[in-house]
């Protein structure tokens, strides 16, 4: 193992819901897949998430949300990412997100939305397949 490049992922929980088990499971799965996971914890504001992504120079942002506030929070996050010149980061979401909201979320740049209980292998595979050559 050398100091070579690793995929860096932010796992964030925007908004006020406090169920972080899913987020932690994902974080561990990504670590086991050889990625460096910056786990930011609960109650993140869009500004905090984007600023973290910038300072940590991440390749991926994984958003976990169960509160139903995705339609307000996600557009704000995507807007901030664009504004800071970070729109080449791969952003995807998981948790409780109604199917009818998914097309809209994809339109604003969320690459994929995964339902609860999605096997972590699927998520890992998704990231590996969608890694843009960012650096």
């Amino acid at each position, binding site marked *: 193992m050398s*100091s*070579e490049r*690793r995929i860096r992922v932010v796992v964030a929980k925007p908004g006020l819901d406090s169920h972080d088990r899913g987020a932690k499971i994902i*974080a561990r799965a990504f670590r086991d897949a050889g990625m460096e*996971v910056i786990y930011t914890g609960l109650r993140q504001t869009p500004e905090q998430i984007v600023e973290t992504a910038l300072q940590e120079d991440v390749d991926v942002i994984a958003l976990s949300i169960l509160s139903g506030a995705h339609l307000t929070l996600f557009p704000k996050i995507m807007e901030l990412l664009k504004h800071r010149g970070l729109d080449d980061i791969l952003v995807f979401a998981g948790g409780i997100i109604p199917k009818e909201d998914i097309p809209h979320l994809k339109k604003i740049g969320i690459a994929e939305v995964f339902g609860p209980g999605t096997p972590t292998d699927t998520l890992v595979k998704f990231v590996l397949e969608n890694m843009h050559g960012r650096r």
Partner: protein
Amino acid sequence: MTNIEQLIDGVLKGDRRSIAKTISFIEDDLPESRKAVSLLYPHTGKAYIVGMTGPPGSGKSTLIQKLVEELRRRGKTVGVVAVDPSSPFTGGAFLGDRVRMQELSTDEGVFIRSMATRGSLGALAKATKDAVKVLDASGKDVVIVETVGAGQSEVEIVKVAHTIVVVMAPGLGDDIQAIKAGIMEIGDIFVVNKADRENVNKAILDIETMLNMNPEKEKWKPPVLKTTAITGEGITILLDKIDQHKKYFEAGAIDTRNRQRVETELVEAIKEKVAESIVDDLKQKGDLDKLVQKILAKEMDPYSAASMLLAKRLEWFKTG
């Protein structure tokens, strides 16, 4: 301006994106990362570097958050490098130190970077020193480095920091007793965090006892402080002590430590270059495999092989 020069220019201006990208550049060991460090070097040496070390569960991250908040109140800008271990099997890492510091993310005067050890055998990532240089060059007044807290290998922090703070907590098992000698000798300030717990006075006594067993090398007597990071108790005193040590350090009293630091860095850089030059040559000629086979067949041992290679390379330098 080349890409690197643009990046460095951004760092010197304090541009956060440039800082982040430059740290990644160096961390990934890209071909021109040495050049990036060279360009930064003349602009380093202004930041004061504080190392925070100690066993997991002692509350280092929470303590750092409170320290940063206090430093900000005192008008200082701060960089934080938080190091966590990479899995030796998967190469991945769970970098969770930021969780305790997230409120600081949106403070313009604070820059936090999480780093994984990535193949480095110690408590610091190989690129930690360079990440500190980037934050230094970007104009941060103070840079705090949080180590893994892995025990013996924490002494590496001496190579990076001016003041080393060792953070412990009562009730972490036999921890105080089991603290390796190395840590007791490198700590400039000792902190018993979670001082609201039982046995805090015993912990302080244990540390003081162990410290008294150290030979007196310098005029600085490491103080043992009490903090309760969650409430913020003891933080201002800790910062005042760090300030005190800083004055002691800058008064030239530990010029030797600075010298040692630079010397170590130089020697390591030389070793790296020499090894690189020899191994690259071997690989190019296709001889690395042959040599490995010889050693496997016990026709040679690795050390004689290395001596022979060095002798050959020196010859080459003379004639080539």
